[in-house]
């Protein structure tokens, strides 16, 4: 439902977005990740028809954003960064305005506004001016505005920014409930959010897509993927001996030791080529009778992948890009 091809945006000498391509189908939730200034918001602004691309094409539900901007805007629900709304209006007045512009039939307007207000839990503040609302409520007004016309495509720029953990959870649940019938794109810098709601993630850095895959595929790129974490009581083992034993195993690349990790000795055993080494390490532990208190297989962490890919000048960054 969303097809983006070679999108470029330049502001004078600055290239904010440099050839971004991706597509999103119905039922997919695409997470847009990247450091600040990477071009996430600019890409979203081009997708929603706010900014015109310098080059490239964005097609939404078969309509080209440049050729038929109104048709595209009718299909999209958009929550801009910071969830802007008219501060002097009440949520009710504001949503009523949006409903008029969005062409919600007059006799359905009231019931639809009430329905959406209850979906995002705004019922209690509908008659209060928006400027008096807390950040969390303002964000929810923005969300209500974006989903009011039940759009086929939903684009949200940092939908959970500024919400407390309970509100974040609610918004994520809402996104998951809506996802089967829509194509959703959201940007975030909260990585756990990607794992919680996204079926796919794109990491964008300096205007380019540097990684694209399901959250677990991205995690598999982590150095920690399939690494084994072991914990011992301090003094219960000879750390040097254990380490040497582990390093002799065929699948083990290296062993990292933290002699005092909150009152424990902890070791991280990294595999060669991110292969599974859990059984090998476990067998060794049993054979030697190590008093292991905890043994845990890592799946990899998105934040670590994110850092290695987007940190300036990192070797991994080169590797992933090439």
């Amino acid at each position: 439902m969303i097809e983006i091809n070679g999108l470029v945006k330049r502001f004078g000498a600055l290239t904010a977005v440099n050839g971004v391509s991706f597509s999103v189908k119905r039922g997919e939730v695409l997470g847009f990740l990247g450091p600040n200034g990477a071009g996430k918001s600019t890409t979203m602004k081009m997708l929603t028809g706010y900014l015109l691309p310098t080059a490239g094409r964005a097609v939404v539900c078969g309509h080209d954003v440049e050729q038929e901007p109104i048709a595209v805007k009718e299909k999209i629900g958009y929550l801009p960064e910071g969830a802007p709304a008219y501060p002097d209006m009440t949520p009710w007045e504001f949503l009523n305005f949006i409903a008029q512009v969005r062409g919600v039939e007059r006799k359905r307007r009231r019931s639809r506004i009430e329905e959406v207000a209850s979906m995002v839990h705004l019922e209690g503040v509908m008659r209060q001016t928006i400027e008096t609302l807390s950040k969390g409520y303002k964000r929810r007004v923005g969300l209500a505005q974006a989903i009011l016309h039940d759009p086929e495509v939903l684009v949200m720029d940092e939908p959970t920014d500024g919400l407390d953990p309970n509100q974040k959870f609610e918004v994520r649940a809402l996104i998951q409930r809506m996802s089967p019938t829509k194509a959703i794109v959201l940007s975030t810098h909260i990585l756990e959010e990607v794992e919680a709601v996204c079926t796919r993630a794109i990491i964008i850095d300096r205007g380019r897509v540097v990684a694209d895959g399901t959250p677990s595929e991205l995690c598999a790129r982590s150095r920690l993927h399939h690494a084994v974490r072991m914990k011992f009581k301090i003094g219960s083992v000879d750390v040097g001996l254990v380490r040497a034993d582990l390093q002799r195993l065929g699948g083990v690349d290296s062993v990292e030791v933290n002699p005092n990790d909150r009152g424990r000795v902890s070791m991280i055993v990294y595999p060669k080529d991110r292969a599974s080494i859990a059984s090998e390490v476990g067998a060794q532990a049993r054979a030697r009778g190590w008093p292991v208190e905890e043994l845990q297989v890592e799946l990899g962490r998105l934040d670590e992948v994110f850092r290695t890919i987007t940190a300036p000048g990192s070797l991994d960054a080169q590797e992933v890009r090439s």
Partner: protein
Amino acid sequence: MNGALRKMWAVFKRELGGYFLTPVAYVFIVIFLLLCGVFTFSESMGGFFERGQADLRTFFGFHPWLYLFLVPAVSMRLWAEERKQGTLELLMTLPIPLWAAVAGKFMAAWVFCGIALVLTFPMVITVNYLGDPDNGIILAAYLGSWLMAGGFLAIGSLVSALTRNQVIAFVGTVVACLGFLLAGFGPVTEVLNSWAPQTLIDAITGFSFFTRFDSISKGVIDLRDLLFFATLILVCLFGTAVMVDAKKAG
């Protein structure tokens, strides 16, 4: 087309309602009515009673000067505020054609000025009570005054589209409107007379709100005057649309 008009109507209603959500509208109307009264009736300025004429020439004569400061106060928020609040991005990603948004917002400001103007009706009652004025002329002058307010507002709309700061929008509009006023102001024309060629003077006074409004306020509705204001409004609104579009990124 029908859909675009419906959306324009929605923008219009929101904008006009927006004026009345804050005290700005009430303050504006009170000040406008107060100054209208003071200027018209004061002995040293309007001398309404001293003239002994049952007409509203003095009342309308002060409108250009009142508009110079009051209309920019109405127009300054049109686009500068949207940009400041970030709602411009929201408005521009709703399925509203740009022209409909520009026209809807302008119409709201214009109708708002019309409401303030209509509220001066006690003036009309007063002259009709005191004498036997030509109400056709008064009606024509009201229309002319409203048209002139539209011209000021359209300039204000364009200036407001250039900035995110409402104070800058206000001052910029005052200066631009002052230019249009002074172009035909007696003393300025006299200064020009001493050195400028007649064609240049004619060209400059041709842009003057004063000369245009003066003839309308006398009850002379000249098609050229109407066209002048209509063209000015359309050109400024077109300019507004161009600037809103061009400055979205900033």
